[in-house]
């Protein structure tokens, strides 16, 4: 019980360490830069999946519009990078040098007002966090205060994603339209394209990811985390324990939005462009499946789920593009029908108990009661009921 109150317990620490070794040591050593950059790209989605664990797994709020926040974060970053790439020297063939190329194509002759602050990196970094959070706050406040939840919320977030996509595509003079913002080159003069930059960015991203994992872990371990779980189960009861359910939902949704936005910003840096194809409904739903495969209640599972699905996608679509869609579709169905707790559930139900038994037989001195308790709350709530 006391163990429970601590921010990470022994098993969880082990889990985080294993992931750290995998991401910091094993992958960089075993993969070439190209593949490592792919991993970096996948990991940007892991941020989104992590956010979904908090808002969907813990809080029971399924958002089908996480692409909106991924996109907002990504676009904020891309706007900064695009401005830097559009220096008057780089763009001297344009009729108006010094503005992004797509603006020039759309007969815009001066930088729009809302672009101007993105000359500043500090402003950009703040915007990456604040803009999506603010947006999530507005949506969340409007919906949760009026007790819109469940499927309605899912469909409305989906509509928001559709609106934003059409808007970005339609306002191409300001956003780059369907092409997105391409050809991003430098960050404060530092070229983000060569291999060594990719490696630096990879490690930076992994560090950020662990930052987010710790935040997620902190939230889960705090009373707030337990309130979220309680809320998912019996919303009314939480209300009658004196909590404002709406505020907690808004908080979870905002955190998820911020994580997604960080992922989006890292995407723009790692991949070198941003496009509306991440904002829409399809990518948003795909991001949900990463979380579901990892186990919607498992923080680390989100990372593994994202990596697994994307590795499968890349390798399958390289050799069997047709099979890939069958595979992905089948994965959705299998996860929902057979493994509602995803990889974490499989781990918690089948693998962990064996390992435990192995350890228990070796050193019988350990406290079996604490172990079983921890095992349960780590293998992330293997026995937990599905979110809905």
């Amino acid at each position, binding site marked *: 019980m006391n163990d429970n109150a601590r921010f990470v317990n022994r098993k969880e620490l082990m889990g985080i360490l294993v992931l750290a070794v995998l991401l910091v040591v094993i992958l960089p050593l075993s993969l*070439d830069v*190209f593949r490592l*950059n*792919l991993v970096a*790209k996948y990991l940007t989605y892991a941020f989104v999946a992590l956010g979904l664990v908090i808002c969907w797994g813990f809080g029971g709020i399924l958002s089908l519009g996480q692409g909106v926040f991924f996109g907002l974060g990504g676009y904020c970053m891309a706007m900064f990078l695009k401005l830097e790439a559009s220096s008057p020297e780089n763009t001297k*063939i344009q*009729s108006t040098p010094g503005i992004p*190329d*797509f603006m020039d*194509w*759309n*007969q815009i002759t001066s930088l729009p007002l809302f672009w101007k602050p993105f000359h500043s990196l500090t402003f950009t970094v703040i915007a990456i966090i604040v803009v999506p959070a603010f947006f999530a706050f507005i949506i969340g406040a409007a919906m949760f205060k009026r007790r819109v939840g469940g499927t309605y919320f899912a469909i409305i977030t989906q509509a928001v994603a559709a609106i934003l996509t*059409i808007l970005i*595509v*339609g306002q*191409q003079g300001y956003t780059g*339209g*369907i*092409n*997105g913002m*391409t*050809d991003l080159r430098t960050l404060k003069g530092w070229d983000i*394209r060569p291999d060594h930059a990719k490696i630096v960015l990879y490690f930076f991203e992994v560090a950020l990811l662990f930052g987010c994992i710790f935040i997620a872990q902190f939230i889960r371990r705090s009373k707030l985390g337990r309130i979220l779980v309680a809320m998912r189960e019996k919303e009314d009861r939480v209300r009658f324990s004196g909590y404002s359910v709406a505020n907690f939902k808004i908080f979870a949704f905002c955190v998820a939005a911020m994580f997604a936005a960080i992922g989006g910003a890292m995407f723009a840096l790692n*991949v*070198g*462009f941003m*496009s509306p*194809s*991440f904002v829409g409904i399809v990518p948003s739903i795909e991001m949900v499946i990463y979380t579901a495969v990892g186990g919607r209640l498992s923080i680390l599972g989100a990372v593994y789920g994202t990596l697994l699905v994307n590795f499968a996608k*890349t390798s399958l*679509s*390289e050799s069997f*593009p*047709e099979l*890939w*869609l069958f595979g992905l579709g089948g994965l959705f169905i299998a996860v929902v029908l057979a493994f509602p707790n995803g990889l974490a559930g499989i781990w918690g139900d089948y693998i962990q108990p064996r390992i435990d038994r192995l350890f228990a037989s070796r050193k019988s001195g350990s406290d079996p009661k604490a172990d079983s308790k921890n095992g349960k709350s780590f293998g992330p709530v293997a026995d937990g009921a599905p979110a809905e």
Partner: protein
Amino acid sequence: MSDDKKRGLDSPLRRKLLMGIAAIPAISMFGGPSFAAGPATSAVNTTGLAVTDTEVTVGILHSATGTMAISETGSIEAEKLAIAQINEAGGVLGRKIKIIQEDGASDWPTFAEKAKKLLVNDKVAAIMGCWTSASRKAVLPVMEQYNGMLYYPTFYEGLEQSKNVIYTGQEATQQILAGLNWIAKEKGAKSFFFVGSDYIWPRTSNKIARKHVENVLKGKVVGEEYYPLGNTQFNSVINKIKLTKPDVIFTDVVGGSNVAFYKQLKAAGIDLSKQALLTISVTEDEIDGIGGENIAGAYACMKYFQSLKNENNEKFVAAFHKMWGEKTVIGDVTQAAYLGPWLWKLTVEKAGSFDVDKIAAASPGIEFKGAPEGYVRIHENHHLWSKTRVGKAKLDGQFELIYETADLVEPDPFPKGYQ
């Protein structure tokens, strides 16, 4: 007509089989021609490309899945055909071409990722690929960073020029201006109504068309409308067309929207044999989905039609049908995609090397006399000199050639006065 419809039932299956065969390096299919021993690999490949003494690897990068698979399938087929033919004719510098095909999955970042994989991992000597502007824009920085060579087949909006890309389709002025001139003269057209899908290619094309109509033809644009990609309801814009009674409807609607647009236009009682309509986005491929009866009478402005009467084209169409099924249609982009491997082969042979820098430098001036569209030549700006043609859609889904420019039109990706 019934014949035409029956093929739908059997052709995909058959196409599938054929694709499977084609995936095996085409040598097995064509009975293994003997490859003359070419120059030493060390001499023709100084940059570590995937070239051996007997083989050279080339990438094909299109969408085989997702919404764009509809359009890009033809390009894949054409490129495979060209490569098979080149191999049959002895390969490139005595080396057989090996294909690595990647799926862009209609997703722009995937295109970038796969392009990078082809260049970095597979070290391909050239990539035949991309279809939409968005995919090209995503791939372009990768091509430039890793110094690859892309042969891009689609007619597009222009405003681009790269050492690492050969544009085998037409850029906007090349495609549009001659067509507008023709229709203005032929139909005495003064007023135009523009309808397009809402993204960069239609918007840029319409911008160029508008300048040309207003400044050169001294006509008037009475309406300019854009609908989101995938929109299926066009009754409102059709009413606006009825209200403004333009001499010419000028369209660049793409994808599934296309089908909806022409079906609804027909249903609204706009008779394309009386109302002139000029499209720059409908090829034989699109008519397949629209249905010939819905679009018959419309004019399309392209550089190639399947029905072109010349020796090259007859051979090309026959070979294409032999490989991909009798009833597979061939559109403008499909033909342009077919040019890619041939132009690359000719350039390699002129440069005497697979090195990308040498190919980029040797490209201007390369002539391809065997092109189905007729003679083409690569311009200094890496686009093609080509003729512009206007065709009239017929009930059977083919175009009847109505007009073609007398000379090759010069590609002008950064047109003065149209920006």
